C-alpha cells in the first residue's frame, strides 16, 4: 500500500544533512529544470494533475498559470510556502521538514523558477521551533553549497529563500491571512476576488503552496508527469501523506496513492481501533470536514471525488479515528472550543457565533440544555455559513450540522426536556 515519493528519504539516517541528502538524489532535478523553459515546467505540473495538499486540493498547474494572467513583468513575483500546519489531525508537513528539508528546498527552486520568482518565503507556525531550526540549518547549507543565492546550482538563476515564523494563530494557515501576517500585520483573511487570480504580497503577484505540494514537484520534474500519474486515480493522481490519529493502534503518517479504501487503511495500516473497540466515526481530513459514521465509510476511497460524493472532503488527509465509547457532543465541544479560540475576530458572525455555539454546548453538556438550544445552534449555522470573509466560519457550521444530524440521539439524550 505504501509508496515512497515524498517520503523516500524519511527513514535514512541524517537525511536532513546536505551531504546525506545529496547521496540520495536531492538537487538532481536542477540540470533538467534549467534546461526547460518555465512554461514547460508549469505544463508538466499541470499534466501531472498535482493537487494542493493543504486542504483545498486545487490543481497546482492551474494555480501557477494565474501568474501569467496578471504579470506584465513590471512587478516581481513571489513564492510563499505554507508551513503553518495547524489543522487538528494534521501532522504531515513536519515530517518533510524534519526528515527531508532539502527536498522542500529543491521543490522551492523548481516552483520559483516555474513562476519566475526570485524571492521565496517559508511561513512556518511559531510552535514548530525545532522544525524552524532544522529548516534554517538546511537553508544555510544550501546557500553555502550554492543551491540558493545569486546563481542557483551555477545555472544563473537568482533565488533568495527566507524562513518566516508565525506566532500561534491558526488562521494564518489561510493563504490570504498568511500573507497579511507575512506583511507584518494581524492575520486577517482578505476578501476574495470574483474571478480566479493569484495572491498578492505587497501588491505583487504571489503563489502560495503547501509544503507537501512543493515537495511533490521534484519527482514530477525528474520522472515526468506520466510517472506521477501511475499512482492514484484519474482525477486525484499521485500520492498523499495520509495521517491517522485518535483511537488507532498505529497512529502516524503514511504516504499512499489516492484511491485506497479508507476502511483498509484504518484496519491494515492503522492496525484497527485501540483496545479492540469498535469504530464509531472518522473525521476524514482535519477537523473542518464533515464527520463520517462508521457505516458510511464502507465504500469510501481516499480521494477528493469519493469523499465529496459522500458529503465530506479529503482536506489534509489527516484522519481522526473515534471509537464507540466516545461522546460525539463532547467531540463537537472540543472542536468548537478550538474554533472559538482561533476565530480571528474580523467578521461578527464568526467572532460572536463561535462563542455562542460554545456556550450553548456547555449548557447542553451540563444537562441544562433544551430542544430550543439545539435549534438555536442549527440556526446559528445559517448565519455562519457563507456570510463571512473566509471559510473558517463555514467549517464550524459543517461541524455543528453534520455532528448534530448524524448523532442526533446523543444530543437529544442530553437535553433537559427529553428526559
Amino acid at each position, binding site marked *: 500500500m505504501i509508496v515512497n515519493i515524498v517520503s523516500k528519504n524519511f527513514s535514512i539516517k541524517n537525511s536532513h544533512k546536505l551531504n546525506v541528502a545529496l547521496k540520495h538524489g536531492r538537487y538532481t532535478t536542477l540540470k533538467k529544470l534549467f534546461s526547460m523553459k518555465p512554461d514547460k515546467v508549469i505544463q508538466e505540473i499541470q499534466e501531472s494533475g498535482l493537487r494542493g495538499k493543504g486542504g483545498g486540493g486545487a490543481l497546482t498547474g492551474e494555480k501557477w498559470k494565474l501568474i501569467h494572467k496578471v504579470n506584465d513583468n513590471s512587478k*516581481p513575483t513571489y513564492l510563499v510556502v505554507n508551513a503553518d*500546519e*495547524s*489543522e*487538528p*489531525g*494534521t*501532522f504531515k508537513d*513536519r515530517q518533510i521538514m524534519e526528515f527531508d528539508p532539502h527536498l522542500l528546498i529543491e521543490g522551492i527552486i523548481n516552483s520559483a523558477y516555474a513562476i519566475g520568482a526570485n*524571492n521565496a518565503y517559508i511561513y512556518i*507556525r*511559531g*510552535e*514548530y*521551533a*525545532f522544525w524552524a531550526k532544522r529548516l534554517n540549518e538546511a537553508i544555510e547549507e544550501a546557500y553555502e553549497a550554492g543551491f540558493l543565492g545569486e546563481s542557483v546550482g551555477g545555472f544563473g538563476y537568482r533565488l*533568495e529563500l*527566507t524562513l*518566516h*515564523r*508565525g*506566532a*500561534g*494563530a*491558526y488562521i494564518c494557515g489561510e493563504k490570504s491571512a498568511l500573507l497579511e*501576517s*507575512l*506583511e*507584518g*500585520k*494581524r*492575520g486577517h483573511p482578505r476578501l476574495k476576488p470574483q474571478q480566479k487570480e493569484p495572491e498578492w*504580497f*505587497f501588491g*505583487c503577484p504571489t503563489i502560495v503552496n503547501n509544503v507537501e505540494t512543493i515537495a511533490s514537484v521534484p519527482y514530477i520534474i525528474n520522472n515526468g508527469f506520466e510517472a506521477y500519474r501511475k499512482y492514484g486515480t484519474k482525477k486525484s493522481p499521485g500520492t498523499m501523506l495520509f*495521517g*491517522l*490519529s*485518535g*483511537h488507532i493502534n498505529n*497512529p*502516524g*503518517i503514511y504516504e499512499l496513492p489516492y484511491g485506497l479504501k479508507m476502511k483498509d487503511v484504518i484496519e491494515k495500516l492503522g492496525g484497527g481501533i485501540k483496545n479492540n473497540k469498535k469504530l464509531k466515526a472518522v*473525521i476524514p481530513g482535519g*477537523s473542518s470536514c464533515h464527520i463520517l459514521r462508521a457505516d458510511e465509510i464502507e465504500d469510501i476511497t481516499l480521494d477528493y471525488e469519493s469523499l465529496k460524493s459522500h458529503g465530506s472532503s479529503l482536506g489534509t488527509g*489527516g484522519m*481522526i479515528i*473515534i471509537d464507540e465509547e*466516545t461522546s460525539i457532543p463532547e*467531540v463537537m465541544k*472540543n*472542536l468548537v*472550543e*478550538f474554533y472559538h*479560540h*482561533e476565530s*480571528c475576530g474580523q467578521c461578527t458572525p464568526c467572532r460572536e457565533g463561535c462563542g455562542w455555539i460554545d456556550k450553548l454546548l456547555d449548557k447542553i453538556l451540563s444537562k441544562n440544555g433544551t430542544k430550543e438550544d439545539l435549534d438555536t445552534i442549527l440556526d446559528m449555522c445559517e448565519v455562519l455559513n457563507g456570510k463571512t470573509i473566509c471559510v473558517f466560519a463555514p467549517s464550524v457550521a459543517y461541524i455543528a450540522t453534520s455532528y448534530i444530524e448524524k448523532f442526533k440521539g446523543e444530543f437529544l439524550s442530553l437535553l433537559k426536556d427529553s428526559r
Partner: protein
Amino acid sequence: MSSFKLNEANEEKFQKLLKRYPDKSSLSLPLLWMVKEQNGWISKDAIRYIASKLGTTPMQILSIASFYSMFNLKPIGKYHIQMCKTLSCKLCGSNKIKEHIEKRVGVKFGETTKDMKFTLSEVECLGSCGTAPVIQLNEEYIENLTVEKLDKLLDELL
C-alpha cells in the same frame, strides 16, 4: 525613549533580514521573536523600540503582538508548560496528563507559580496528533506522554 535594545547577534540578523523583504513592515514578527528570545516576554518598552525601528506607532505594534498567542505581554515562568487540548490529544488521554501536571506543579492551567518557576497554559492543536498526548516545554515538544514520563521530567524540573 526605550531602554530595550537588540543584542549584537539579533541586530545583525535584523539588518540581514531587511534586505530580504520588499518592505520593512514585514519585520514586525521577526523583531517580536527576537524580543521574546532576549527577554522572555514582550514589554511595552520593547514595543516602543520595535515601533521606532520600523517607523510606525507603538499602538500598531501592540495590536500585532496582542493578536498572536505566542507573544506573551506579561512575564511568564521559567518553565512554560503548554498542553495541547485539541481532539487527538484529548482522545489519547490528555485530561489525565493535565490533572497530573496541576497536582504536581500546584497551580491550575492558566496560572503561574508564585516563584515564577512554572506557567501552565492550555493551547490548541500542536500538530502532534500521531504522537499524542503532547506538551511543549518552552520550545521543546515532549510527545507520547504518559504519567510516568511526565513524572520523570517534573522530578528534574521541580
